[in-house]
């Protein structure tokens, strides 16, 4: 049976029947075997070791760069007047943006009853956690005197100083801090039933105790499931406005200033669309190799990829619209300085960055209109990588071009990152990948309990059919 439906193409749209979300004729047991097998394998794939080795070296580079920065001061970065925000804040916004896909998939798609989310939400949430850690790093280390970073929080101190709550920079502290802790809670609570599965399958004492503690004694009681589902729904309902608020608040850092190119009301929705766009691109970048490496192709199917590509197409088009409408408003608003800044973005000294951004984010995703591209692994992998590049450049263009050339030509200057900044940025990928690879190795990478509820198996019985083969799959093929 298994061989018949293994290569079943579930991207076909057949209005007579719902396309299955799990292929390969799995039952609950075999699905659990596949997912837990990733964490239970005595030895992970060689590619995992290679990736882990590289990531560790990259993470060590980050540590060295931060140590150098702390000992020498922020002068080792290329920041100066007038460009006081460069790679640091670009990286912050880039990582926060990537951190948006997890909660979007978990919360918003949950509220919209998009059942295909179950295969990728665990993955995306983990990515969110680690991306937000990378994001939190940058504002922390760019403050100059890092040992005073606690001043960002409203802490009673001996100088009787309170933060200024009218500042969007402080809103950021609250928004990103809340986002991180709520995402962590959401991720962990979602994982508890699956950790219990790992506990119950554990063969060694250490695994039993380890997974036993983190699964909190979960026993799958119907009463527990009832409160669990309600809590999950509430968390989704709370996280949905939260995820929209976080990047809106990040965009306020720019929008509430008077700088030309920053002072626009389109920023909150534009940033949120960009965040979702870049987040999905990163999910794709990670999911494509992971599903190959860990044999999860039956669960993260081509249909899931297709759906994510459609979301990227939609958000990429929104971002492209935002780029265009910014230009229109710069002209229509009649503000000479604003108009200059936008012309300067597209044709000035940073035009190369602008056109990398525009082509990677607005033009290239348009290829996803073609179904062949949407369902081709290599094509979507390449595009997702390009979108990552493009979205990094978007933040770079917004931050640097506006700061470098504002109102008075006498205040203009260019910005060039130093090697320390470049290596710090590269190093942050180590901070992202090391925990992510450890997550893939030791934790349930797929939300098994949730996938089980959307399996054809579950639906078949819910519909009352008592057959023991998998007619749902084979019938569609016929």
């Amino acid at each position: 049976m298994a061989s018949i439906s293994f290569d079943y193409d579930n991207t076909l749209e057949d209005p007579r029947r719902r396309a299955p979300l799990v292929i390969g004729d799995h039952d609950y047991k075999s699905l659990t075997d596949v997912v837990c097998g990733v964490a239970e394998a005595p030895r992970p794939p060689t590619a995992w070791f290679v990736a882990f080795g590289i990531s560790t070296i990259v993470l060590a580079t980050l540590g060295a760069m931060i140590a150098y920065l702390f000992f020498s001061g922020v002068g080792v970065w290329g920041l100066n007047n007038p460009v006081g925000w460069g790679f640091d804040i670009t990286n912050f916004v880039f990582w926060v943006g990537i951190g948006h896909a997890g909660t979007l998939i978990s919360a918003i798609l949950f509220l919209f009853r998009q059942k295909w989310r179950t295969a990728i939400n665990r993955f995306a949430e983990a990515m969110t956690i680690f991306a937000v850690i990378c994001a939190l790093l940058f504002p922390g280390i760019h403050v100059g005197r890092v040992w005073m970073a606690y001043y960002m929080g409203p802490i009673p101190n001996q100088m009787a100083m309170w933060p200024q709550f009218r500042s969007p920079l402080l809103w950021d502290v609250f928004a990103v801090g809340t986002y991180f802790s709520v995402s962590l809670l959401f991720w962990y609570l979602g994982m508890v039933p699956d950790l219990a599965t790992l506990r119950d399958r554990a063969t060694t004492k250490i695994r039993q105790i380890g997974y036993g503690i983190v699964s909190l004694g979960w026993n799958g009681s119907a009463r527990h499931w009832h409160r669990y589902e309600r809590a999950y729904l509430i968390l989704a309902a709370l996280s949905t406005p939260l995820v929209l608020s976080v990047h809106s608040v990040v965009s306020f850092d720019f929008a509430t200033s008077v700088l030309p190119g920053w002072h626009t009301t389109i920023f909150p929705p534009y940033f949120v669309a960009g965040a979702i766009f870049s987040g999905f691109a990163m999910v794709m970048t990670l999911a494509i190799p992971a599903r190959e490496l860990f044999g999860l192709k039956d669960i993260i199917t081509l249909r899931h990829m297709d759906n994510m590509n459609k979301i990227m197409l939609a958000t990429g088009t929104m971002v492209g619209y935002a780029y265009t409408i910014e230009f229109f408003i710069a002209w229509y608003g009649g503000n000479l300085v604003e108009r200059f800044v936008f012309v300067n973005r597209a044709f000035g000294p940073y035009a190369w960055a602008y056109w990398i951004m525009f082509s990677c984010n607005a033009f290239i995703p348009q290829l996803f209109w073609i179904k062949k591209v949407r369902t081709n692994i290599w094509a979507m992998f390449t595009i997702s990588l390009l979108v990552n590049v493009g979205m990094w450049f978007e933040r770079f263009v917004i931050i640097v071009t506006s700061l470098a050339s504002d109102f008075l030509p006498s205040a203009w200057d260019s910005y060039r990152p130093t090697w320390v900044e470049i290596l710090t940025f590269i190093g942050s990928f180590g901070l992202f990948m090391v925990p992510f690879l450890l997550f893939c190795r030791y934790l349930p990478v797929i939300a098994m309990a949730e996938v089980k509820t959307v399996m054809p198996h579950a639906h078949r019985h819910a519909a009352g059919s008592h057959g023991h083969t998998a007619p749902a799959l084979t019938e569609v093929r016929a």
Partner: protein
Amino acid sequence: MSAAAAPTSMTPPAAPARLAGLLVEFDEEHNLVEACRRVRDAGFTRWDAHSPFPVHGIDEAVGIRPTRLPLLVFAIGMLGTLTGLGLTTWANASEWFAPQNLPTNLQGYNFLVSGKPYVSLPAFIPVMFELTVLFAAFTAGLGMLALNGLPNFYNAVFRSPRFRRATTDRFFIYVEAADPRFNAHSTATLLSQLGGQVERIEEPTRVEQPPRWLFTVGIVAVTLSLLPLMVIARARVSKSREPKIHIIQDMDNQEKIKAQRASPVFADGRGPRFPVGMTREQPLGTTVARGDAISLKTDAHFFEGRAGGDWATAFPPQITVDEGLLHRGQQRFNIYCAPCHGYDGTGNGTVNNKGNSGERPGWTWVKPLSVNDQTVRDRANGHIFNTITNGIRTMPAYGDQIPEKDRWAIVAYVRALQRSGATTIDDVPADKRSELEKR
């Protein structure tokens, strides 16, 4: 507990043990739902269904009443909103209502920024919103765990090896022996009629306890962890003549210039000196002082035009006199100097002509000296540079407007003007002279 009560018992009865409950296993979730209805209708209260995922329709079948969790979340969420409002107004706008006899580090104050109202509600909304979500989300998550009685690492059902599949693909009903309607015989019969396999769960009458030394270690560890906090708390309320311990020797102890003090930064040990130039130095390309010789203007030749106690006659080594420099000098001269001195440097600039036009009786205007004047010709390069920097007679100082390199370029151009001002017909090549004579 009679032996006949367990028709399908899997576990051998352990020595002093008592029956904790009966467990029945199902393969399919719809069988579980059906079975739950029958157990519910039989009137049991202390029982539960277990499944690897939330089974559709099980709430009704088990008879689970809706949880109070949403109410709790709403209440604590509102508390979060109020906390946000309280925090922001306390920290930024509390002088008018807060008691003033609080410890200093707890007092709030009125924080005036750009003339905005102290209570800037719209600006406080983001913080209020985030705290609402934070409080509500943690209530939802931790409240769910608390209402579920988790973490709880012991449950009698875990004693069954078969129950390990409850988190993978099997479905269970467990009826506790503590249920008032429980009867070892009749309940087992009922459960076996539901279609699953019934298993007796027995637990020892004496529950194993963790080793006693673990408690001792725990108490000692907790006590020790409180020590640093106690030391800090004591330090906050006591006074000491000893200087504070600074882990990071921040700005309190650094090598910097202080008024009337020697400075170890400079070779001559002199602290008081001219301030670092604050203007934008074109040739140096930076506004922040970096590097001694440049930012502290210690190079007297380049910055002041002096050499060995007198005006420098030569150009400083940083300046190469070439065509580019002369063009730069010409351009700067035409911008800054020509309005008074005229484009040829003879003193017939627009300002001068206007000043001497007699339009305003009673006004006097001293005509600038021509660059061709012998006194100017005799002046050293450094002297002319100094005149541009600091001005002379009615001419103001241009040192703040023209960077050093440009001032030297102007000096070079002035020299060129002097050269052209002293030419005779003999200096003109023979084949060009006829062109001049025509004029």
